[in-house]
Protein backbone atom coordinates (compact mmCIF):
# COMPACT_ATOMS: atom_id res chain seq x y z
CA UNK A 1 0.00 0.00 0.00
CA UNK A 2 1.48 3.26 -1.04
CA UNK A 3 -1.11 5.72 0.14
CA UNK A 4 0.48 8.92 1.50
CA UNK A 5 -2.50 9.51 3.75
CA UNK A 6 -2.04 6.11 5.35
CA UNK A 7 1.70 6.53 5.56
CA UNK A 8 1.28 9.60 7.74
CA UNK A 9 -0.67 7.56 10.18
CA UNK A 10 -4.27 7.37 11.24
CA UNK A 11 -4.26 6.99 15.01
CA UNK A 12 -6.23 3.75 15.19
CA UNK A 13 -7.86 1.09 13.05
CA UNK A 14 -11.25 2.80 12.68
CA UNK A 15 -9.56 5.98 11.50
CA UNK A 16 -7.47 3.91 9.13
CA UNK A 17 -10.58 2.25 7.72
CA UNK A 18 -12.20 5.64 7.17
CA UNK A 19 -9.15 6.76 5.26
CA UNK A 20 -9.11 3.61 3.18
CA UNK A 21 -12.83 4.01 2.53
CA UNK A 22 -12.27 7.48 1.11
CA UNK A 23 -9.51 6.13 -1.10
CA UNK A 24 -11.65 3.17 -2.22
CA UNK A 25 -8.82 0.89 -1.20
CA UNK A 26 -8.80 -2.78 -2.16
CA UNK A 27 -6.60 -5.06 -0.09
CA UNK A 28 -6.18 -5.98 3.54
CA UNK A 29 -5.39 -4.47 6.91
CA UNK A 30 -3.45 -7.01 8.95
CA UNK A 31 -3.78 -6.17 12.64
CA UNK A 32 -1.24 -7.78 14.94
CA UNK A 33 -1.75 -8.38 18.61
CA UNK A 34 -4.07 -10.55 20.63
CA UNK A 35 -6.06 -11.94 18.94
CA UNK A 36 -5.24 -9.87 15.89
CA UNK A 37 -6.85 -10.47 12.56
CA UNK A 38 -7.22 -9.30 9.01
CA UNK A 39 -9.79 -6.94 7.57
CA UNK A 40 -10.32 -7.33 3.86
CA UNK A 41 -11.56 -4.36 1.86
CA UNK A 42 -12.86 -3.94 -1.62
CA UNK A 43 -13.36 -0.45 -3.00
CA UNK A 44 -13.13 0.87 0.53
CA UNK A 45 -15.83 -1.41 1.94
CA UNK A 46 -15.08 -4.15 4.45
CA UNK A 47 -15.98 -7.46 2.83
CA UNK A 48 -14.46 -9.89 5.34
CA UNK A 49 -12.87 -10.00 8.77
CA UNK A 50 -10.83 -13.02 9.75
CA UNK A 51 -9.58 -13.45 13.29
CA UNK A 52 -8.83 -16.44 15.48
CA UNK A 53 -11.26 -15.03 18.02
CA UNK A 54 -14.43 -15.63 16.01
CA UNK A 55 -15.61 -18.29 13.57
CA UNK A 56 -15.30 -17.64 9.86
CA UNK A 57 -18.17 -18.53 7.49
CA UNK A 58 -16.78 -21.98 6.76
CA UNK A 59 -16.66 -22.77 10.47
CA UNK A 60 -20.23 -21.57 10.91
CA UNK A 61 -21.44 -23.69 8.03
CA UNK A 62 -19.64 -26.82 9.13
CA UNK A 63 -19.94 -26.70 12.90
CA UNK A 64 -23.61 -25.85 12.78
CA UNK A 65 -23.96 -28.87 10.49
CA UNK A 66 -25.47 -26.63 7.86
CA UNK A 67 -23.12 -28.32 5.40
CA UNK A 68 -21.65 -31.77 5.88
CA UNK A 69 -17.88 -32.00 5.70
CA UNK A 70 -17.76 -34.35 2.69
CA UNK A 71 -20.00 -31.93 0.80
CA UNK A 72 -17.76 -29.04 1.78
CA UNK A 73 -14.68 -30.84 0.52
CA UNK A 74 -16.43 -31.71 -2.72
CA UNK A 75 -17.49 -28.12 -3.19
CA UNK A 76 -13.95 -26.93 -2.59
CA UNK A 77 -12.63 -29.27 -5.24
CA UNK A 78 -15.36 -28.32 -7.68
CA UNK A 79 -14.74 -24.61 -7.19
CA UNK A 80 -11.23 -25.00 -8.60
CA UNK A 81 -12.76 -25.53 -11.99
CA UNK A 82 -16.30 -24.24 -11.66
CA UNK A 83 -15.61 -20.80 -10.26
CA UNK A 84 -15.91 -19.04 -6.90
CA UNK A 85 -16.64 -21.19 -3.88
CA UNK A 86 -19.77 -19.23 -2.98
CA UNK A 87 -21.27 -19.84 -6.40
CA UNK A 88 -20.35 -23.50 -6.21
CA UNK A 89 -21.97 -23.95 -2.82
CA UNK A 90 -25.17 -22.41 -4.14
CA UNK A 91 -25.04 -24.33 -7.42
CA UNK A 92 -24.65 -27.61 -5.58
CA UNK A 93 -27.65 -26.77 -3.43
CA UNK A 94 -25.65 -26.87 -0.21
CA UNK A 95 -26.73 -23.41 0.89
CA UNK A 96 -29.06 -20.79 -0.53
CA UNK A 97 -27.64 -17.55 -1.84
CA UNK A 98 -29.56 -15.23 0.54
CA UNK A 99 -28.58 -17.30 3.54
CA UNK A 100 -24.93 -17.36 2.51
CA UNK A 101 -24.95 -13.62 1.96
CA UNK A 102 -26.40 -13.04 5.41
CA UNK A 103 -23.92 -15.39 7.01
CA UNK A 104 -20.93 -13.68 5.39
CA UNK A 105 -22.26 -10.30 6.45
CA UNK A 106 -22.73 -11.51 10.03
CA UNK A 107 -19.12 -12.67 10.22
CA UNK A 108 -17.86 -9.22 9.24
CA UNK A 109 -19.56 -7.66 12.25
CA UNK A 110 -18.70 -10.57 14.52
CA UNK A 111 -15.04 -10.52 13.55
CA UNK A 112 -14.76 -6.79 14.18
CA UNK A 113 -16.41 -7.24 17.57
CA UNK A 114 -14.08 -10.10 18.47
CA UNK A 115 -11.00 -8.11 17.50
CA UNK A 116 -12.17 -5.19 19.60
CA UNK A 117 -12.09 -7.37 22.72
CA UNK A 118 -8.35 -7.91 22.40
CA UNK A 119 -5.25 -5.82 22.23
CA UNK A 120 -3.66 -4.50 19.09
CA UNK A 121 0.04 -3.98 18.66
CA UNK A 122 0.01 -2.45 15.21
CA UNK A 123 -1.13 -2.93 11.66
CA UNK A 124 0.02 -3.36 8.12
CA UNK A 125 -1.85 -2.23 5.05
CA UNK A 126 -1.20 -4.59 2.19
CA UNK A 127 -2.88 -4.65 -1.18
CA UNK A 128 -1.33 -7.99 -2.10
CA UNK A 129 -3.30 -10.07 0.41
CA UNK A 130 -6.02 -11.96 -1.46
CA UNK A 131 -9.57 -11.84 -0.18
CA UNK A 132 -11.02 -15.05 1.26
CA UNK A 133 -13.37 -17.22 -0.73
CA UNK A 134 -16.49 -16.25 1.19
CA UNK A 135 -17.02 -12.52 1.50
CA UNK A 136 -19.89 -10.13 2.12
CA UNK A 137 -20.71 -8.30 -1.07
CA UNK A 138 -20.71 -5.43 -1.71
CA UNK A 139 -19.28 -4.87 1.76
CA UNK A 140 -19.85 -2.78 4.87
CA UNK A 141 -19.02 0.88 5.30
CA UNK A 142 -16.39 1.33 8.03
CA UNK A 143 -18.49 3.86 9.91
CA UNK A 144 -21.36 1.40 10.23
CA UNK A 145 -18.97 -1.34 11.27
CA UNK A 146 -17.41 0.71 14.05
CA UNK A 147 -20.78 2.03 15.21
CA UNK A 148 -22.22 -1.45 15.44
CA UNK A 149 -19.12 -2.74 17.23
CA UNK A 150 -19.35 0.05 19.78
CA UNK A 151 -23.04 -0.69 20.28
CA UNK A 152 -22.37 -4.36 20.86
CA UNK A 153 -19.68 -3.66 23.41
CA UNK A 154 -21.98 -1.27 25.24
CA UNK A 155 -24.86 -3.75 25.30
CA UNK A 156 -22.73 -6.58 26.62
CA UNK A 157 -20.91 -4.51 29.20
CA UNK A 158 -24.26 -3.34 30.55
CA UNK A 159 -25.56 -6.89 30.74
CA UNK A 160 -22.47 -8.61 32.10
CA UNK A 161 -19.70 -6.23 33.15
CA UNK A 162 -16.11 -5.92 31.96
CA UNK A 163 -15.88 -7.58 28.57
CA UNK A 164 -12.28 -8.71 28.83
CA UNK A 165 -13.21 -10.78 31.89
CA UNK A 166 -16.34 -12.01 30.14
CA UNK A 167 -14.39 -13.22 27.15
CA UNK A 168 -12.05 -15.20 29.40
CA UNK A 169 -14.72 -16.55 31.71
CA UNK A 170 -15.21 -20.29 31.69
CA UNK A 171 -18.85 -21.17 31.63
CA UNK A 172 -20.54 -23.80 33.72
CA UNK A 173 -24.20 -24.73 33.55
CA UNK A 174 -26.17 -23.96 36.68
CA UNK A 175 -26.74 -26.78 39.08
CA UNK A 176 -30.06 -27.96 37.73
CA UNK A 177 -31.38 -25.79 34.91
CA UNK A 178 -34.82 -26.66 33.58
CA UNK A 179 -33.49 -27.68 30.20
CA UNK A 180 -36.82 -28.94 28.93
CA UNK A 181 -38.44 -25.53 28.83
CA UNK A 182 -35.63 -23.51 27.31
CA UNK A 183 -35.13 -22.19 23.80
CA UNK A 184 -32.99 -24.47 21.65
CA UNK A 185 -30.12 -21.98 21.62
CA UNK A 186 -29.92 -21.98 25.39
CA UNK A 187 -30.12 -25.76 25.55
CA UNK A 188 -27.24 -26.07 23.10
CA UNK A 189 -25.12 -23.71 25.16
CA UNK A 190 -25.87 -25.62 28.34
CA UNK A 191 -24.93 -28.86 26.66
CA UNK A 192 -21.69 -27.33 25.40
CA UNK A 193 -20.68 -25.57 28.61
CA UNK A 194 -18.41 -27.82 30.60
CA UNK A 195 -16.46 -25.47 32.84
CA UNK A 196 -13.48 -25.44 30.51
CA UNK A 197 -14.93 -23.49 27.63
CA UNK A 198 -14.86 -19.72 27.38
CA UNK A 199 -17.39 -17.94 25.14
CA UNK A 200 -15.05 -18.18 22.17
CA UNK A 201 -14.72 -21.93 22.62
CA UNK A 202 -18.48 -22.27 22.78
CA UNK A 203 -18.89 -20.21 19.63
CA UNK A 204 -16.53 -22.44 17.69
CA UNK A 205 -18.01 -25.62 19.15
CA UNK A 206 -21.58 -24.62 18.33
CA UNK A 207 -20.87 -22.97 14.99
CA UNK A 208 -22.21 -19.62 16.09
CA UNK A 209 -20.82 -16.10 16.19
CA UNK A 210 -18.96 -14.89 19.26
CA UNK A 211 -21.26 -11.95 19.94
CA UNK A 212 -24.48 -13.99 19.69
CA UNK A 213 -23.05 -16.54 22.11
CA UNK A 214 -21.92 -13.88 24.56
CA UNK A 215 -25.29 -12.16 24.30
CA UNK A 216 -27.09 -15.41 25.04
CA UNK A 217 -24.74 -16.13 27.92
CA UNK A 218 -25.46 -12.73 29.41
CA UNK A 219 -29.19 -13.35 29.15
CA UNK A 220 -28.80 -16.85 30.55
CA UNK A 221 -26.73 -15.54 33.43
CA UNK A 222 -29.54 -13.14 34.28
CA UNK A 223 -31.84 -16.17 34.43
CA UNK A 224 -29.28 -18.05 36.53
CA UNK A 225 -28.94 -20.73 33.93
CA UNK A 226 -25.14 -20.53 33.84
CA UNK A 227 -22.44 -19.95 36.38
CA UNK A 228 -19.40 -17.82 35.85
CA UNK A 229 -16.12 -19.40 36.72
CA UNK A 230 -13.15 -17.16 37.31
CA UNK A 231 -11.35 -16.21 34.12
CA UNK A 232 -8.34 -18.31 33.33
CA UNK A 233 -5.35 -17.05 35.27
CA UNK A 234 -7.42 -15.09 37.74
CA UNK A 235 -7.76 -15.66 41.45
CA UNK A 236 -5.34 -16.81 44.09
CA UNK A 237 -2.69 -19.37 43.36
CA UNK A 238 -3.88 -22.81 44.42
CA UNK A 239 -2.16 -24.34 47.41
CA UNK A 240 -0.24 -27.38 46.34
CA UNK A 241 1.66 -28.01 49.56
CA UNK A 242 1.26 -31.41 51.23
CA UNK A 243 -1.78 -31.55 53.45
CA UNK A 244 -1.60 -32.57 57.08
CA UNK A 245 -4.28 -35.22 57.27
CA UNK A 246 -4.43 -35.12 61.06
CA UNK A 247 -5.57 -31.52 61.15
CA UNK A 248 -6.74 -31.00 57.56
CA UNK A 249 -4.46 -28.00 57.22
CA UNK A 250 -1.86 -27.51 54.59
CA UNK A 251 1.73 -27.70 55.61
CA UNK A 252 3.55 -24.37 55.75
CA UNK A 253 5.49 -23.52 52.64
CA UNK A 254 9.08 -24.68 52.67
CA UNK A 255 11.59 -22.09 53.78
CA UNK A 256 14.13 -22.99 51.13
CA UNK A 257 13.30 -21.80 47.62
CA UNK A 258 12.55 -24.34 44.96
CA UNK A 259 15.38 -25.33 42.65
CA UNK A 260 15.46 -23.40 39.40
CA UNK A 261 16.43 -24.70 36.03
CA UNK A 262 19.67 -23.35 34.68
CA UNK A 263 19.38 -22.75 30.91
CA UNK A 264 21.86 -24.64 28.87
CA UNK A 265 22.63 -27.30 31.44
CA UNK A 266 19.35 -29.23 31.46
CA UNK A 267 19.77 -29.51 35.17
CA UNK A 268 18.38 -27.55 38.09
CA UNK A 269 20.44 -25.58 40.54
CA UNK A 270 20.13 -26.86 44.05
CA UNK A 271 19.85 -23.30 45.30
CA UNK A 272 19.10 -20.26 43.20
CA UNK A 273 22.25 -18.33 42.59
CA UNK A 274 24.52 -21.29 43.18
CA UNK A 275 26.74 -22.56 40.38
CA UNK A 276 24.96 -24.86 37.98
CA UNK A 277 25.17 -28.52 38.66
CA UNK A 278 27.46 -30.44 36.41
CA UNK A 279 25.60 -32.72 34.06
CA UNK A 280 27.38 -35.54 32.32
CA UNK A 281 27.64 -34.86 28.67
CA UNK A 282 26.70 -31.21 28.95
CA UNK A 283 30.19 -29.83 28.61
CA UNK A 284 30.57 -27.62 25.62
CA UNK A 285 26.81 -27.30 24.99
CA UNK A 286 25.91 -23.94 23.52
CA UNK A 287 23.01 -22.28 25.32
CA UNK A 288 20.01 -21.62 23.11
CA UNK A 289 19.38 -17.90 22.76
CA UNK A 290 15.98 -16.67 23.90
CA UNK A 291 13.34 -16.32 21.20
CA UNK A 292 11.70 -12.91 20.90
CA UNK A 293 7.97 -13.48 20.81
CA UNK A 294 7.05 -9.91 21.54
CA UNK A 295 3.89 -8.42 20.13
CA UNK A 296 5.59 -6.07 17.72
CA UNK A 297 3.86 -6.03 14.36
CA UNK A 298 5.43 -8.33 11.91
CA UNK A 299 7.72 -6.42 9.66
CA UNK A 300 8.01 -7.61 6.09
CA UNK A 301 10.31 -10.57 6.34
CA UNK A 302 12.99 -11.71 4.07
CA UNK A 303 10.61 -14.37 2.83
CA UNK A 304 8.51 -11.77 1.09
CA UNK A 305 8.80 -12.13 -2.64
CA UNK A 306 10.68 -9.29 -4.27
CA UNK A 307 7.62 -8.49 -6.34
CA UNK A 308 5.43 -7.91 -3.28
CA UNK A 309 4.47 -4.26 -2.79
CA UNK A 310 5.78 -2.51 0.30
CA UNK A 311 3.67 -2.56 3.43
CA UNK A 312 2.97 0.39 5.66
CA UNK A 313 3.57 -0.40 9.29
CA UNK A 314 2.19 1.42 12.29
CA UNK A 315 2.63 1.02 15.99
CA UNK A 316 -0.36 1.21 18.29
CA UNK A 317 1.44 0.90 21.58
CA UNK A 318 0.79 4.51 22.47
CA UNK A 319 -2.91 4.08 21.96
CA UNK A 320 -5.47 2.40 24.18
CA UNK A 321 -5.34 -1.32 23.76
CA UNK A 322 -8.96 -2.12 24.64
CA UNK A 323 -11.60 -1.36 22.07
CA UNK A 324 -9.15 -0.58 19.33
CA UNK A 325 -11.68 -1.15 16.61
CA UNK A 326 -14.22 1.16 18.19
CA UNK A 327 -14.28 4.88 17.51
Amino acid at each position, binding site marked *: MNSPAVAHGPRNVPALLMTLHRERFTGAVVVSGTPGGTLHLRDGLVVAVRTPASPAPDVLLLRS*RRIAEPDWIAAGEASRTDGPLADTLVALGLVRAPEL*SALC*LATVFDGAFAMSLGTSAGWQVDDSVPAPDLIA*EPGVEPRRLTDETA*RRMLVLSQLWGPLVDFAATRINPAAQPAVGT*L*PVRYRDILLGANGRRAPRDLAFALGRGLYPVMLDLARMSA*RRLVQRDAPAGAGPTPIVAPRDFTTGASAPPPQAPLPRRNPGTHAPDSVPGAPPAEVPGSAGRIPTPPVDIGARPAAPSGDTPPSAPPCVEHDLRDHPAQGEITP
Partner: protein
Amino acid sequence: MLSQSEGGQSHPLEASLSGVLDYPGVIGAALIDAVTGLVYAEVGDCRALGNGTELADLTNLVTDRLTEAGAAGEVESVVVNSRRYHQITQVLPRRGDDFLLATVVDRAETNLALAIRATAEHARNVLA
Protein backbone atom coordinates in the same frame (compact mmCIF):
# COMPACT_ATOMS: atom_id res chain seq x y z
CA MET B 1 -37.08 3.54 11.78
CA LEU B 2 -34.86 0.87 10.52
CA SER B 3 -31.40 1.87 9.63
CA GLN B 4 -30.23 1.18 6.16
CA SER B 5 -29.24 -2.36 5.54
CA GLU B 6 -25.79 -2.95 7.03
CA GLY B 7 -24.74 -4.62 3.91
CA GLY B 8 -25.68 -1.77 1.65
CA GLN B 9 -26.85 -3.41 -1.56
CA SER B 10 -27.19 -7.05 -0.53
CA HIS B 11 -28.59 -8.19 -3.83
CA PRO B 12 -29.51 -11.81 -3.12
CA LEU B 13 -31.10 -10.83 0.16
CA GLU B 14 -33.06 -7.91 -1.17
CA ALA B 15 -34.17 -9.94 -4.16
CA SER B 16 -35.52 -12.63 -1.87
CA LEU B 17 -37.30 -10.05 0.25
CA SER B 18 -38.85 -8.00 -2.50
CA GLY B 19 -41.51 -10.61 -3.27
CA VAL B 20 -43.24 -9.94 0.03
CA LEU B 21 -44.16 -6.47 -1.19
CA ASP B 22 -46.49 -8.10 -3.72
CA TYR B 23 -48.85 -9.19 -0.98
CA PRO B 24 -51.81 -6.87 -0.32
CA GLY B 25 -51.09 -4.22 2.27
CA VAL B 26 -47.41 -5.02 2.83
CA ILE B 27 -45.48 -1.77 2.60
CA GLY B 28 -42.09 -2.78 4.00
CA ALA B 29 -40.07 -5.78 5.08
CA ALA B 30 -36.73 -6.51 6.68
CA LEU B 31 -34.63 -9.59 7.25
CA ILE B 32 -33.03 -9.48 10.67
CA ASP B 33 -30.76 -11.66 12.78
CA ALA B 34 -32.93 -13.06 15.55
CA VAL B 35 -30.17 -12.89 18.18
CA THR B 36 -28.13 -9.81 17.38
CA GLY B 37 -30.74 -7.70 15.63
CA LEU B 38 -28.41 -7.10 12.71
CA VAL B 39 -30.43 -5.99 9.68
CA TYR B 40 -29.35 -8.03 6.68
CA ALA B 41 -31.65 -6.40 4.17
CA GLU B 42 -34.78 -4.34 3.90
CA VAL B 43 -37.21 -3.33 1.17
CA GLY B 44 -40.03 -0.82 0.98
CA ASP B 45 -40.97 1.60 3.73
CA CYS B 46 -39.77 0.18 7.04
CA ARG B 47 -40.13 3.26 9.20
CA ALA B 48 -42.95 1.71 11.21
CA LEU B 49 -40.91 -1.36 12.12
CA GLY B 50 -38.50 0.08 14.65
CA ASN B 51 -34.86 -0.90 14.50
CA GLY B 52 -33.61 -4.44 14.16
CA THR B 53 -32.18 -4.63 17.65
CA GLU B 54 -35.50 -3.73 19.22
CA LEU B 55 -37.33 -6.31 17.15
CA ALA B 56 -34.86 -9.02 18.08
CA ASP B 57 -34.96 -8.01 21.74
CA LEU B 58 -38.74 -8.08 21.72
CA THR B 59 -38.84 -11.52 20.16
CA ASN B 60 -36.25 -12.85 22.58
CA LEU B 61 -38.10 -11.31 25.50
CA VAL B 62 -41.34 -12.98 24.44
CA THR B 63 -39.55 -16.28 23.95
CA ASP B 64 -37.81 -16.10 27.31
CA ARG B 65 -40.93 -15.19 29.22
CA LEU B 66 -42.99 -17.88 27.53
CA THR B 67 -40.45 -20.58 28.30
CA GLU B 68 -40.08 -19.32 31.85
CA ALA B 69 -43.82 -19.72 32.18
CA GLY B 70 -43.49 -23.30 31.02
CA ALA B 71 -44.54 -22.98 27.40
CA ALA B 72 -43.06 -25.64 25.16
CA GLY B 73 -41.89 -25.19 21.60
CA GLU B 74 -40.56 -22.18 19.76
CA VAL B 75 -42.17 -18.83 19.05
CA GLU B 76 -43.45 -18.67 15.48
CA SER B 77 -44.44 -15.03 15.15
CA VAL B 78 -44.95 -11.86 17.12
CA VAL B 79 -47.65 -9.41 16.08
CA VAL B 80 -47.93 -5.82 17.24
CA ASN B 81 -50.92 -3.75 16.17
CA SER B 82 -51.08 -0.01 16.00
CA ARG B 83 -53.89 2.20 14.73
CA ARG B 84 -52.52 2.25 11.20
CA TYR B 85 -50.27 -0.77 10.88
CA HIS B 86 -49.82 -4.40 11.73
CA GLN B 87 -46.22 -5.24 12.52
CA ILE B 88 -45.71 -8.94 11.92
CA THR B 89 -42.45 -10.63 12.85
CA GLN B 90 -42.04 -14.19 11.61
CA VAL B 91 -39.28 -16.40 13.00
CA LEU B 92 -37.38 -18.26 10.29
CA PRO B 93 -35.81 -21.34 11.85
CA ARG B 94 -32.58 -22.56 10.31
CA ARG B 95 -29.43 -24.41 11.22
CA GLY B 96 -27.57 -21.71 13.05
CA ASP B 97 -29.17 -18.65 14.56
CA ASP B 98 -32.68 -17.95 13.36
CA PHE B 99 -33.66 -15.06 11.11
CA LEU B 100 -36.62 -12.74 11.54
CA LEU B 101 -38.80 -11.61 8.69
CA ALA B 102 -40.40 -8.39 9.89
CA THR B 103 -43.14 -6.85 7.79
CA VAL B 104 -45.26 -3.76 8.22
CA VAL B 105 -48.79 -3.99 6.84
CA ASP B 106 -51.27 -1.19 6.23
CA ARG B 107 -54.44 -2.03 8.16
CA ALA B 108 -56.60 -0.27 5.61
CA GLU B 109 -55.40 -2.57 2.86
CA THR B 110 -55.87 -6.01 4.40
CA ASN B 111 -56.95 -7.84 7.52
CA LEU B 112 -54.67 -9.33 10.11
CA ALA B 113 -55.42 -13.00 9.45
CA LEU B 114 -54.75 -12.66 5.76
CA ALA B 115 -51.56 -10.70 6.38
CA ILE B 116 -50.20 -13.29 8.82
CA ARG B 117 -50.96 -16.08 6.40
CA ALA B 118 -49.33 -14.24 3.50
CA THR B 119 -46.16 -13.31 5.39
CA ALA B 120 -45.85 -16.80 6.84
CA GLU B 121 -46.05 -18.21 3.35
CA HIS B 122 -43.37 -15.83 2.16
CA ALA B 123 -41.21 -16.55 5.20
CA ARG B 124 -40.93 -20.15 4.09
CA ASN B 125 -39.55 -19.03 0.77
CA VAL B 126 -37.41 -16.07 1.74
CA LEU B 127 -34.26 -18.14 2.09
CA ALA B 128 -35.00 -20.29 -0.92
